[in-house]
């Protein structure tokens, strides 16, 4: 855990003194990504640089576990903390392997161990070791260089990783891909990560929590959902953007709103008139047809009325089936695309797991905003 305790940083002295950080306290729990978010000049990068003592703290304390970083040797401290920067900062005079080996070499690992570690890291970051080990940074694309930058940060297997806009220098498509790769990696590695970003989308995507900075103060520190749905003041609300309802949907998934026990289920082997009677009695306009645990489509009362056969022969198949991890933003988009208000959800085996309707989505959005309406009056300044 990284603990920031009343951290203050003042640059310069006397009249020229600039307060970059003003009495900021929060902590980064083990194994989580905390995004330091805010506009430029808000103090987020300074906070990161204080952590590995590239800048010296003016007042307050930073603790890593129980260790106060004031009591450490800066050089040893930095070797313990992985560091990845925006400009990537690969050394152009060194090969990819030599770049990755930087910290292990400083720590005095033997050659064999370093070499094995390089291959492991290259594979981890989706770069073919044979192909890339002995290349120079200039020969790699921006995205590949960034992967090497991440590999270099992870080289000595640090518990903590400090990342300063690590994916800022690459094009949006590659960035998306590297972000996904990195999240997959993090799911395995469970590093404690301080991640500086100025991009709200990136923060929502990458952050387990977001620390929002403004003019040297910590404005709000919470999980992305809360930042989006309950912004503490006007600055936060503006910063997260007017489309924050859509952003909330971006982080919520089908499993957050799924209806696991819909009552309008019809068996594919039922006769149409029986099914019609069933729907009519319960007051449903249409039914979901399930056969052997798998959803095969839907039927409306209208269709059933004029048919005299088995339900499975008149069923209208679903254009697509959702997974529990599908984001609600995507679901909403599918609803618009296919002009449908309900979709079926299946598990990994393709078995029926429940349904999601437009009303369900609307309800979760409304619920997540409920608290904001109450607090709006006094917090807005």
């Amino acid at each position, binding site marked *: 855990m990284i603990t920031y305790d009343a951290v203050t940083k003042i640059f310069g002295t006397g009249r020229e003194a600039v307060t970059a950080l003003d009495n900021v306290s929060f902590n980064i729990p083990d194994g989580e990504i905390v995004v330091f978010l805010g506009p430029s000049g808000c103090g987020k990068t300074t906070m990161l640089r204080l952590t590995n003592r590239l800048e010296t703290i003016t007042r307050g304390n930073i603790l890593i576990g129980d260790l106060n970083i004031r009591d450490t040797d800066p050089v040893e401290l*930095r070797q313990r903390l992985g*560091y990845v920067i925006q400009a990537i900062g690969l*050394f152009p005079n060194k090969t990819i392997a030599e770049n990755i080996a*930087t910290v292990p070499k*400083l720590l005095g690992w033997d050659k064999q161990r370093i070499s094995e570690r390089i291959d492991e890291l290259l594979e981890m970051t989706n770069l073919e070791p044979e192909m890339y080990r002995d290349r120079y940074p200039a*020969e790699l694309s921006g995205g590949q260089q960034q992967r090497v930058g991440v590999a270099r940060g992870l080289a000595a297997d640090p518990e903590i990783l*400090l990342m300063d806009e690590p994916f800022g220098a690459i094009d949006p498509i590659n960035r998306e891909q590297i972000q996904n790769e990195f999240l997959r990696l993090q799911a395995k590695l469970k590093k404690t990560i301080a991640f500086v970003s100025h991009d709200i989308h990136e923060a929502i995507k990458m952050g387990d929590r977001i620390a929002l900075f403004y003019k040297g103060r910590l404005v709000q520190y919470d999980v992305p959902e809360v930042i989006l749905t309950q912004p503490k003041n006007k600055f936060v609300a503006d910063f997260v953007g007017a489309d924050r309802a859509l952003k909330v949907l971006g982080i919520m998934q089908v499993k957050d709103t799924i209806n696991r026990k819909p009552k309008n289920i019809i068996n594919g082997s039922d006769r149409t008139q029986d099914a019609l009677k069933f729907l009519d009695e319960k007051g449903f306009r249409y039914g979901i047809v399930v056969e052997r645990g798998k959803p095969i489509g839907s039927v409306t009362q209208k269709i059933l009325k004029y048919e005299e056969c088995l339900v499975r022969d008149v069923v209208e198949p679903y254009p697509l089936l959702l997974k529990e991890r599908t984001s609600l933003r995507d679901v909403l988009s599918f609803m618009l695309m296919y002009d449908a208000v309900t979709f079926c959800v299946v598990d990994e085996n393709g078995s029926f797991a429940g349904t999601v309707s437009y009303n369900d989505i609307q309800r979760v959005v409304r619920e997540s905003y409920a608290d904001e309406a109450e607090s709006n009056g006094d917090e807005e300044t």
Partner: protein
Amino acid sequence: MFLYWEHIWIVGLALLIASVIGVPLGIYITGHDQVATRVLNSATVLMTIPSIALFGLMLPILALFNMGLGKVPAVIALVLYSQLPIIRNTYTAIKNVPPELVDAAKGMGMDRWKLLREVEIPLAIPVIIAGLRTAAVMNIGIAAIAVYIGSGGLGVYIEQGIARVYPEMILSGAILVSLLAIIVDGLMALLERMATPAGIKLQRTLAR
């Protein structure tokens, strides 16, 4: 032929001493801005003193140690003249190492010395050698004038040619000096290329 080697010897020795002083000084002042301005200004002032005047100035001082004439004052003068290109190039080259590389290196836990050895010097070396190259070529010319304080070298032909009003002799001396300058310049260019790290060369070719 002896005069040729004598000339090379004076210039070579001066260059060696100059780089031993100039390169570390140039590196040192990158971390001390105020000192840097003073050092670079002093080196510039030194450079503006005409060589004949410098020899004249040093004469009474070195005469105290009984070394007013000969090779010693010549080498000292050349060392002084070399300081500007060597210090300035070293200083500029180290200062021009991209700040994000320095940041990355420090952030990963390199101390000052490692940063210098692993990152800054490899990236700066081509420009540092270019400074040595300028100094070498310049000194070959100035060394010819040092003949007036009895240093020897190729300047002897020129001096004697003037004394005897013998233009062919002056010309042959001048041509020999130029030839030496051209050869040394070529060799230093080669050294410059050899000292450039492979990754940097690639970067340059690919950037085109």
